[in-house]
């Protein structure tokens, strides 16, 4: 049974017992994040911040599945990458406006998630991880072998950023930033809402004790599939946005190392915490940025972080803070 999150992270409070303090704290954090988003482009390089935001949203989506569905997917790159291809392709070749291209990418990922999810949830735990990995590898080969759609190893380059709603020119980094920040915030709020909805509560119940949830009359598989599709769609949203930001969709986005990276971000930030993946994404993306000159050592450093996190730091950054202040984060 995949109780990976349940054993380590402090269980999120149920709505009934959620004390006002926790809610107030979460609201304060949300406002804090919003303020940070407003300040960020003025103190840091906007393209870098946008990259962090895309990956943070990706990690949040992944964590929705792992932390609250109890399912460790090792193939989330498939949804991220497929959406980024669809978004880039439609924006470039069909001339769709960015918001439509992003939505279409997200929808396609959701559809892919529905198919793959239906297959993968037939097995649990380690098998689930291997199946998602193998399915994602199939998507990778598909992308490699259909250059007409994906541009093969060259990827889809020079994707136009276009005009939002056909009106606002996104060519300027600052202008685009506000769109990305808005998408991120919307994604974060949506995930927060899902986790704290009755649906989210049932998912957690299934994660913690599936037979019990089934005996209570919940159709566990349908809930699992639903959370899988939600997670895949949100990963797709992140991937589509990334395609617009970097004007590029490439094989990197569908490769298994991308799936590994998102696991790492979530692990560093804290599995099963609401805000952990954001912290994890900031840490890992900055690390990649600053260590880029080190070449192969980046892989080694990532591996070491993996090992350290698993051995001694399973709660992750936010998990530790959460334990410390004794409030779920």
């Amino acid at each position, binding site marked *: 049974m995949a109780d990976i999150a349940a054993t380590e992270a402090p269980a999120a409070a149920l709505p009934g017992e959620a004390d006002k303090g926790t809610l107030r704290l979460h609201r304060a954090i949300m406002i804090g994040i919003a303020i940070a988003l407003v300040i960020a482009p003025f103190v840091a390089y906007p393209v870098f911040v946008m990259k962090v935001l895309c990956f943070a949203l990706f990690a949040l989506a992944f964590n929705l599945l792992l932390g609250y569905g109890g399912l460790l997917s090792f193939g989330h790159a498939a949804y991220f990458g497929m959406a980024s291809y669809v978004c880039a392709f439609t924006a470039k070749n069909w001339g769709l406006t960015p918001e439509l291209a992003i939505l279409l990418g997200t929808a396609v990922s959701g559809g892919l998630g529905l198919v793959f999810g239906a297959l993968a949830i037939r097995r649990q735990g380690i098998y689930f*991880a*291997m199946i998602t990995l193998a399915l994602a590898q199939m998507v990778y080969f598909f992308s490699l072998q259909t250059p007409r759609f994906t541009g093969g190893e060259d990827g889809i380059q020079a994707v136009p950023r276009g005009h939002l709603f056909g009106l606002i020119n996104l060519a300027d980094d600052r202008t685009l930033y506000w769109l990305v920040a808005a998408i991120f915030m919307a994604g974060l709020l949506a995930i927060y809402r899902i986790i704290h909805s009755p649906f989210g509560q049932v998912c957690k119940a299934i994660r913690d004790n599936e037979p019990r949830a089934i005996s209570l009359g919940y159709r566990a598989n349908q809930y699992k599939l639903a959370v899988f599709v939600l997670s895949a769609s949100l990963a797709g949203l992140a991937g589509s946005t990334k395609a617009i930001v970097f004007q590029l969709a490439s094989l990197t986005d569908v490769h298994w190392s991308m799936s590994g990276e998102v696991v790492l971000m979530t692990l560093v930030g804290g599995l099963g915490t609401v805000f952990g993946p954001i912290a994890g994404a900031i840490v890992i993306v900055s690390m990649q940025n600053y260590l880029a000159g080190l070449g192969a050592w980046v892989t080694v450093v990532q*591996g070491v972080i*993996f*090992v350290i996190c698993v051995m001694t730091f399973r709660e992750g950054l936010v998990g530790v803070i959460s334990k410390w202040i004794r409030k779920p984060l």
Partner: protein
Amino acid sequence: MFELLGVPPQALFGQVLLGLINGSFYAILSLGLAVIFGLLNIINFTHGAQYMMGAFVAWMCLNYLGINYWVALLLAPLVVGATGIAIERLLLKRIAHVDHLYGLLLTFGLALIIQGLFRNEFGSSGLPYQIPAELRGGVNLGFMFLPWYRGWVVVASLVVCLATWFLIEKTRLGAYLRAATENPTLTQAFGINVPLLVTLTYGFGVALAGFAGVLAAPIYSVNPNMGADLIIVVFAVVVIGGMGSILGAIVTGFSLGLVEGLTKVFYPEASATVIFIIMVLVLLVRPAGLFGRAA
């Protein structure tokens, strides 16, 4: 009859044989994964990196110490197995009590470290390793030219696979092992040192990967990335076979190699994906895998 879908039977036999050769690698690797999974309940993501280490140890033996292929074939699995024992004792043991998915994450991290270190040291373009003199050349079978070395790969891996099967299913040590798989606590109560058994099992499974690495060194380039992509295919093989039985892992490995070989003749574009497609089909029909016991 003699022209099957436009492919002459000679070519077909050739491809079947080549498929078996690739299947040998799948079989040894998935066997190692199955042995480890049986007792430790973890999926060893480091397996690909350990396969690569086997090839590199053979290369280092030859180039630094002048040790030839045949000795390396024994030595490299021991060295790789020893590093595996160290990993089990130092790391895996300490997380045995938490969710087994952490084992997957840990071994994934280890794979990144090992591959990164080798890439730093040896570069990525690969190193040459010659086929041992005794096995150079080949024999003309009429329908194809079979290099001796390829034939040797099939024989060697069959022997190793069957020996492993015999060890686990027919010997006293194997009986302990199976007992510990079923119920570690009870087995321990009977005075069997289960933690030692676990350590040795991991070492053994890893040594199998190292052995496959040495076998691969003369035909594939000795390269830090050689195991990274292979391991994902082997995962699919394991999902198809189900990890319940040793024999299942062996049979699945060989037969999927065969299927892949045939795909290369009839529709080469799909040969990279055919195993994954089979995996999807098997999941639809038999979620527990062909040889797996239903959970």
